[in-house]
């Protein structure tokens, strides 16, 4: 399966993240699954004229490829000209190249939240860059290719969203396609692969005991739950971050900071400071999406009153000050 990869307006972090694939070499992993890069801006040999010729051959159908992966937002500004990102050596807007190549690709993948929704690139007030995703403007279908776009393989754009994406999300989606095929049933309502977006960041969070007892962190580096005060959206964000782990066994929550829901469209404009929880009448507005609010409040009050001293005390420290009790021998 041949993959052509382009970078729009973004930070390149999804590629840097992809290179963190573990265990084993990313290149060997993809080779073994029969996946090869036709070109990749950070990795391929071809530069300058060689690369430009390759793009033209791909866009005109002379050079067949299977998957177009696009990282970074599409810039249509200023004033619809696309001049905020011109293809180097060519002078045509990158967005124009993506439109042409998408018509030839059997499948189109948006790698990361910029190319899926517009992401951080679309976060400037008034969006002067006219940044958008491949098939979304934030959470509204449309984007560069339009709501009705289907690649010749029959799917809308596959949104491997995340800021950045996890290497596993990209590799597994490519391998699922290469080895077993990918259908609409494999994607959620926003076109995200269910193999990672079928879970919530909350699932597997190492702070779940603190969450259960509403034993909340009050300041950075506290061990407690980050939902009540420090802006965590793990109960609403679709991703399996706390199950597969980042860079070994890490995750945002394990790093001691809030999930900002970077896989969700519009995450870059939360309407409040990222690291503070927005509350109305003392109650966080971002409660779990599939739980009646009154029940949540009632349960929270109950669990707070039942919180063990260990959990309550450790929640506001950066290291456990009370250990779980050990059963005495013979009892």
């Amino acid at each position, binding site marked *: 399966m041949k993959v052509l990869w382009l970078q729009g307006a973004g*930070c390149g972090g999804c590629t*840097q993240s992809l290179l963190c694939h573990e265990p084993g070499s990313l290149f060997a992993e993809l080779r073994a699954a029969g996946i090869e890069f036709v070109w990749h801006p950070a990795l391929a040999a071809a530069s300058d004229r060689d690369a430009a010729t390759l793009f033209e051959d791909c866009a005109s159908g002379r050079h067949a490829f299977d998957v177009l992966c696009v990282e970074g937002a599409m810039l249509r500004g200023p004033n619809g000209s696309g001049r905020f990102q011109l293809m180097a050596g060519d002078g045509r807007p990158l967005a124009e190249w993506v439109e042409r190549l998408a018509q030839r690709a059997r499948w189109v993948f948006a790698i990361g939240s910029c190319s899926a929704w517009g992401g951080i690139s679309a976060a400037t007030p008034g969006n002067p860059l006219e940044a958008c995703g491949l098939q979304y403007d934030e959470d509204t279908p449309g984007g560069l290719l339009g709501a009705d776009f289907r690649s010749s393989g029959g799917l809308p754009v596959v949104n491997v969203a995340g800021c950045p994406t996890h290497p596993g999300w990209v590799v597994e989606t490519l391998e699922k396609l290469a080895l077993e095929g990918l259908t609409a049933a494999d994607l959620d309502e926003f076109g995200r692969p269910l193999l990672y977006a079928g879970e919530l960041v909350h699932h597997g969070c190492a702070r779940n005991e603190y969450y259960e007892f509403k034993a909340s962190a009050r300041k*950075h580096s506290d061990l407690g739950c980050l939902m009540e005060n420090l802006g965590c959206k793990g109960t609403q964000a679709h991703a399996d971050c706390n199950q597969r782990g980042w860079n070994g066994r890490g995750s945002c929550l394990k790093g001691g900071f809030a999930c900002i829901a970077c896989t969700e469209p519009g995450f870059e404009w939360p309407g409040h400071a990222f690291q503070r929880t927005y509350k109305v009448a003392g109650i966080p507005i971002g409660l779990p999406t599939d739980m009646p609010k009154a029940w949540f409040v009632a349960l929270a009050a109950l669990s707070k009153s039942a919180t063990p001293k260990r959990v309550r005390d450790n929640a506001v420290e950066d290291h456990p000050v009370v250990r779980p009790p050990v059963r005495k021998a013979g009892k």
Partner: protein
Amino acid sequence: MTRIRLGPFNRVEGDLEVLLDVTGGSVRAARVNAPLFRGFEQLLAGRAPEDALTIVPRICGICSVAQSAAAAAALAAAAGVRPPRNGELARVLVQATENLADHLSHFYLFFMPDFAHAAYAGRSWHGDLATRFTALRGSAGDDLLPARARLLNVMGFLAGRWPHTLALQPGGSTRAVTAAERVRLRSLLREVRAFVEGVLLGDTLEGFAALATWPQLQAWAAGRRGDFPTFLGAAGDLGLERIGRAGDSFISFGAYDGLFPAGIRRPDGAVDAVDPAKITEDVRHAWLVDGEPLPPARGETRVLVDKEGAYTWCKAPRYAGEALETGALARQLVAGTPLPCDLVARHGASVTARVVARMVELATVLPAMDGWVRALVPGEPFCLPAPLPDEAEGAGLVEAARGSLGHWLRIERGRIAHYQIVAPTTWNFSPHDRRGRPGPLELALVGLPVGDGAPPLVQHVVRSFDPCMVCTVH
């Protein structure tokens, strides 16, 4: 005279185009174009000050932590706080991890594949280097990637993930390290050391770091098995120690809390203190509204697409009016490290000197990291509160892998009123300024052979700076 437009220039971070005026088969003048505009400075205005910590890492996926550290430092200056010792150690460890991972990525993924180019087919070393370094297929990539991933597992412990962490705060680090994790971190660092010694250098870190002169380095490399000595063989054959000289004036903001000091290094070897007040940015040749060069604390970024004489989105930072080179070589020259100083004393800055400086950093920073891990004290605080005033200013000056990175912010009425960023490649790949002085790369390309049949020396020189274009056009 003919004009050549090189691009897309890949295996750099981000979008790059190089315009060359050529006479008689060699470069007479060069202009460097960053053809992407991103607008983060406008994006930050109006936000809550601490939102910068979420936003600025997303300027760059390869200097992500450096951007975090600069913002955290600027906010700490605004808040008037200093992190506790554990917080500072965690930060330098995270910065060092990113910088060393970037040095490895640069050497193996971005820079070395050019030596597999068909133009070198007649060279004695070409077969070996092509087997080892051909892009995506060479054997080196499969050795590098697991080692790089293991190094970045340090981030899993200290920063949650990489890129784009929120662990670095003005008051310290959100992630307290346990005694057990300290042991595991040291184990990870030993694994990375084994790769660097066994695969990259073919010697102990200490053995390589003891080399002080160019002849010693050549003697050391001769016949040695290791990817870096192999590079030195090819580089010596091509004379890359005499290729790619810019102005030989350098800037470093200083790294790792004193391990590498800050300074301005002059062509005669003298080192002065950095005076940030002498930094200005000139926008004469950028698609931005022109005006007198301004210091970043008062800098402006206003788009003007149809502008006579403009050819890039990159500004031209100048220090007391002078274009400076930044990066690992600058850091090591300012620090007075013998080997890079000897190379530059003989031939000026060069492709080889820039690569050597990165290797010196791998050999010296890895052992320092082990020392920083050992200095962490579990149980002592990692982060202190850092309440931000409603009115304040601050600057954060740090070193990314590829050089000096500065953030300047002003807070008014509890919101970000002004934010300016000067990134490493903004220095190195800056355009001409209003007085006609070229940027460092523009100078370094002059005189190189180009055209059909010419060796890819332009490619070596461009990539020797380890450019990060997405930072450049923040």
